[in-house]
């Protein structure tokens, strides 16, 4: 013996459950292309049975949970790889700018000016008293100085350009961190009241992914459903619903990143675009600039020494040809009077001995045990190799990220076919439940009118 009213209730439960399932399906379809969205499944559970006499009767169905289908391990992996990918992206971008300054395949760089300078001395050696040839030597020296300046200024400008992006990135980081803290609060309170915080978790994952693109973060799950984010050398960024925003401060002419307590964590920023930018700014550029300075400085010293060993057109001993300097930015010709070029090795105006000796410096090991040409060639080969390595790594990383994303999509992404099938399924069940309701209703009517 069942109960008609019991059956009515069961039918009602079914209507409600299937209606809810339809809502979930409709939500999935609406969010089919939302980034970070994980498809949701209705979890339908059988209501506890009730005993009537010696028989157990089921009491219907209920929608106990709206479950998000996601693989949290995959999400974490994607976040980690995104850190590496962001770092490589900004490294490649910086190195591309740098390598453009020395693109000898298009004739940009120092090779042409270096050759021209030494060749002007060879020319002078054929006719040492010729004032035009002497002036040419000064002009070629000036052109070499211009080339050094362009390269040096170029590097400095790139450094300051990428330096300026640091505060912007840090403020984006802080914004995302505070979003995550808000979501933490919402998730904690939903979980506290026993609900599945699906959409919030999706949004938080997406925010963490975007944050990972900017900076290296460690994600630690806390028991209350919130995550703790730390960056740098363990400095807290988000704890529960609190944000510990990063700050920037100019120290030694460049932007340093400080945590909320004021500790300098710049050297701990190793991932994301911020990490890549800091690496290019603090390691790549200074290293290349230092090599360029070494080239300028060694050339200046060796050339001036040989120049001083010779005599100018007036028979006086040679003075400094280049301004004594240790940097490429300050490289320059010290002489303006063509007569002061010390071409002679014995004081006679027409002797070309010193001009030959000066020209011969091109093939002597005057910079770090190498000739100027070999040293320069090595420098640009180093720059090119760094750029090429970064690009290769970037490609590999893109491929890994693509694969992980595909895997994630396989798990979490909405399949329209699937949702269509579900739609039919729930609709049929709803129809059937409505039909049952209708039948039971008639029966109830009959029952009520039995005694009439």
């Amino acid at each position, binding site marked *: 013996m069942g109960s008609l009213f019991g059956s009515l209730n069961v039918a009602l439960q079914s209507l409600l459950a299937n209606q809810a399932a339809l809502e979930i399906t409709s939500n999935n379809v609406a969010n089919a292309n939302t980034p970070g969205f994980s498809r949701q499944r209705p979890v339908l559970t059988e209501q506890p049975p009730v005993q009537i006499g010696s028989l157990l009767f089921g009491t219907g169905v209920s929608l106990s949970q709206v479950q998000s289908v996601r693989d949290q391990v995959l999400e974490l992996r994607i976040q980690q790889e995104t850190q590496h990918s962001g770092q490589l992206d900004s490294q490649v971008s910086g190195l591309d700018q740098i390598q453009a300054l020395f693109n000898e395949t298009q004739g940009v760089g120092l090779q042409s000016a270096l050759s021209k300078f030494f060749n002007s001395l060879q020319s002078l050696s054929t006719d040492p008293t010729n004032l035009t040839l002497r002036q040419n030597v000064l002009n070629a020296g000036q052109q070499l100085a211009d080339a050094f300046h362009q390269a040096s200024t170029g590097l400095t400008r790139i450094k300051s350009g990428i330096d300026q992006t640091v505060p912007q990135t840090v403020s984006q980081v802080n914004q995302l961190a505070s979003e995550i803290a808000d979501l933490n609060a919402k998730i904690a309170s939903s979980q506290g009241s026993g609900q599945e915080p699906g959409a919030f978790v999706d949004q938080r994952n997406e925010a963490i992914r975007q944050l990972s693109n900017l900076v290296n973060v460690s994600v630690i799950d806390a028991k209350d459903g919130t995550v703790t984010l730390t960056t740098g050398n363990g400095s807290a960024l988000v704890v529960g619903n609190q944000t510990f925003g990063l700050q920037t401060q100019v120290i030694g002419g460049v932007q340093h990143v400080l945590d909320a307590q004021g500790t300098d964590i710049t050297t701990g920023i190793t991932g994301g675009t911020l990490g890549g930018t800091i690496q290019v700014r603090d390691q790549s550029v200074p290293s290349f600039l230092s090599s360029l300075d070494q080239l300028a400085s060694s050339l200046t010293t060796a050339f001036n020494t040989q120049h001083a060993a010779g005599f100018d057109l007036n028979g006086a001993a040679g003075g400094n040809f280049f301004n004594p300097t240790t940097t490429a930015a300050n490289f320059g010709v010290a002489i303006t009077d063509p007569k002061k070029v010390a071409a002679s090795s014995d004081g*006679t105006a027409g002797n070309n001995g010193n001009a030959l000796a000066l020209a011969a410096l091109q093939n002597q090991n005057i910079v770090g045990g190498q000739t100027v040409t070999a040293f320069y060639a090595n420098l640009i080969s180093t720059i090119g190799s760094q750029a090429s390595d970064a690009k290769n790594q970037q490609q590999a990383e893109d491929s890994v990220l693509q694969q992980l994303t595909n895997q994630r999509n396989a798990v979490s992404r909405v399949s329209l076919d699937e949702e269509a099938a579900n739609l039919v399924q729930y609709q049929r069940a709803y129809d059937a439940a409505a039909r049952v309701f209708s039948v039971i209703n008639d029966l109830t009517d009959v029952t009520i009118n039995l005694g009439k």
Partner: protein
Amino acid sequence: MSLRINPDLFSTLLPALGQDRQRVNTALAQISSGLRVTSLSDDPFAVAGLVLNQTESDTAAQFTQSIASVQARLQTADSSLNSIVQALNRAISLGIQGANGTLSDTERQQLANEVGTIKQQVVDLANTAFQGKYIYAGTAVTTQPYVLDSTSPSGVRYVGNNSVNNVQVGQSEFVPINAPGSTIFNGSGADVFQALHDLVAGLQSGTGIPAANAELSAAFSNVNLQRTFYGNTLDRLSAANLNLSQEKVTLTQQKTDLVGADLARAATDLAQSETTLNASLAAFGRISQNSLFNFLK
């Protein structure tokens, strides 16, 4: 749950499409620029090699230029020496005439005058300048090397120096580009001006003519001997030029090997990658836009 596939086809196909396009672009860029390497990162070691190669090419071009300017000067020197040799020849025949004992004082005086004129001619020729620089002055090229000096036994004094300038015309090849006047005209026992001076004196006085003739002969031989310097040096310069031409050809080939595009290969790459791209695009277009929704009534 059974194995579920990634429902998002576009996210897997779009990157592949991007790569196809990239290959087409790369092949096109190679063909249009003729370069396989257009940035440092394309091939860092090739670009390093390019720097060395280009520097060698620039140096070879400079050597060619140096040779050209030296050749001009040497040719001027050689032709002025030619004039000097002719003048000395004339003086020698005058001397031989003067040795004939049958000449009268007046006739000998006439000969003396002509030899005197020749001497002045030779002094002027020995002071030849090329583009304003005296070619027989050693390295003291801004000062006239031969001056008239009555205190000198020959009446002419050399005020240049004995230095020689060298010019580089090859990697380790240096060529002297001048012969000092002292070597050519003031050899010991073969001093041209002394000989001419003595011949004039001899013709005027009527004695010592054979001795003067012998002196002149010796001086003349020396000049001819020293003159070979110019012929030899010009030959060396021609040979150096030939080497440089050959070197330029080698360097150009080396440059192509380093950074030049293999056009045949690039054209093939272009055809292949275009085919792949078109196939990908066609496949893309045929991806079913249908889902189950289209079939539900």
